[in-house]
């Protein structure tokens, strides 16, 4: 079993616990923005896609990498954008105008 695997497993388990503790505290009020925000964070796959496409090893790897760049970057841009739009709508009674 490669040493990298072990260290990645450590990171995975610790991040999973951090995620569990943090997400438990998110109010059900914000479960929809939570899903779109974590989706935007997950789109960090784009960095791996950029490297695969940018290394230019085979034509196939470039094409697959570019599809991945476009798909994940659309999640990143769209995910942050819609999360912010949703959160702007959550207002208290006092700050409510009109």
């Amino acid at each position, binding site marked *: 079993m490669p040493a990298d*695997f072990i260290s990645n497993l450590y990171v995975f388990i610790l991040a999973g616990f951090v995620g569990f503790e943090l997400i438990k505290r998110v109010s*059900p009020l914000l479960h*929809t923005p939570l899903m779109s925000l974590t989706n935007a964070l997950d789109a960090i796959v784009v960095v791996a896609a950029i490297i*695969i496409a940018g290394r230019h090893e085979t034509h196939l790897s470039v094409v697959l990498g570019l599809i991945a760049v476009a798909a*994940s970057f659309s999640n990143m841009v769209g*995910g942050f954008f819609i999360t912010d739009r949703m959160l702007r709508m959550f207002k208290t*009674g006092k700050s409510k105008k009109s």
Partner: protein
Amino acid sequence: MNVFTGDQLLSFTYIIAVVLFILAIKWLSSPTTARRGVLAGEIGAALAVGATLYNPDVTQYKWIIIALIVGAGVGIPLGMVHMTAVPQRTALSHAFGALSAAMVGIAEYYVGIPRVTRFEMGEIGLEVIIGSLTFTGSLIAAGKLQEILPQRPIVYRGQNFVSLSVLGAALVLAILLVINPNNTHLFPAMIIVALAFGVLLVTPIGGADMPTVISLLNSYAGFSAALLGFVLNSKVLVVAGALDGSSGFILSVIMCKAMNRSFTNVMFGAFGQVQAGAAAQTEQRTVRSASPEEAAGILAAADKVVIVPGYGMAVAQAQHKVRELYDSLTKKGVDVKFGIHPVAGRMPGHMNVLLAEADIPYERLLEMDAINSDLPQTDVALIIGANDVTNPAARTDASSPIYGMPILDVDKARTVMVIKRSMNPGFAGIDNPLYYFDKTLMLFGDAKGFVSDIVRELGGGSGH
């Protein structure tokens, strides 16, 4: 400036990004800090993308820039959709996330062959299977939510056997590849079988189960990214994937609990089909109905009103009319709150977003436990487009398919009003005894139309 090598600089940037991602989720815990969380996430993502583009490994920029522009061109309109379309947008984004994770995994295999070790093959195989099935499964879910595909469960005899055999076939192909990673012809077969399994997995699931399914797909998309992090030895992917995966997993558990069902029951139960026969045998019972004028009179005379919204409100896009109702009742001194069931609507938090969009202050939106302690002191519970989540049979009738599901105890309010198109029990086919109670008034009509009629009556009510 040669303190760091290029690789170290990249690693440090990724560490900063990871810290910002964790802060992003931490700040999302409350509406007052949530927007700061989005900003933290955006800075983290921008740093990571910028540092990666600067990385010397990347030699060809032209196509990458074009792909980024295409991605932004697709992502921005998808970020601008109407709030009622958020569930299908979310399902589509799970599909995109899984697609990109699968694509990178596939590229990694073909670049690595014939030097791919068995261990690496195991990681790639699992990653590509999960990514592929999440891709097609999420597309089917998005199609159902957009109503391109039928929302009712599509079932046939032996379905579970077929689905599980297809999954088994994908796993067998992955095992054969682990035994000999150079069996390149098996790899596309494994992908195709995994894609087919995604379709089979989600097709039988009905619209009412979408909150669980969408959460589960979220979790799969996250775990496929984390697995990709293992394949590429990229800690930033492992962390982001673990955060997304655990978020989806927790939401799935919350949704399952809110329906008193297990994962396997949601995935393989095909809920809607079972009760269609049972509903047919209910005898004719009388219901009391009321006009908008009568409903307005009762609401205006109340001290405390609880509004229970459901998917019907979303379909009718009635949330803005509901806000007008909230405004005119509040103006008359009526205390109006909203009772939100965790599985109301088509995704976790769906109702909250729609009501927030309509400018209803979020402190008026109460969770199930909070509102249930209020309901016995409530004069009127007004149900708009919700059904199963208010069904008292879940508490009292052990033979009911939803027995044991936690519900909003609207039947404890003094008067119950239900806005509903007709007595048709809907596709889930579960009869709701609430409608036959003496204290229940049925308000037959379209949610949006009926609410605006009530608002009009309330506005002019004092004149006559």
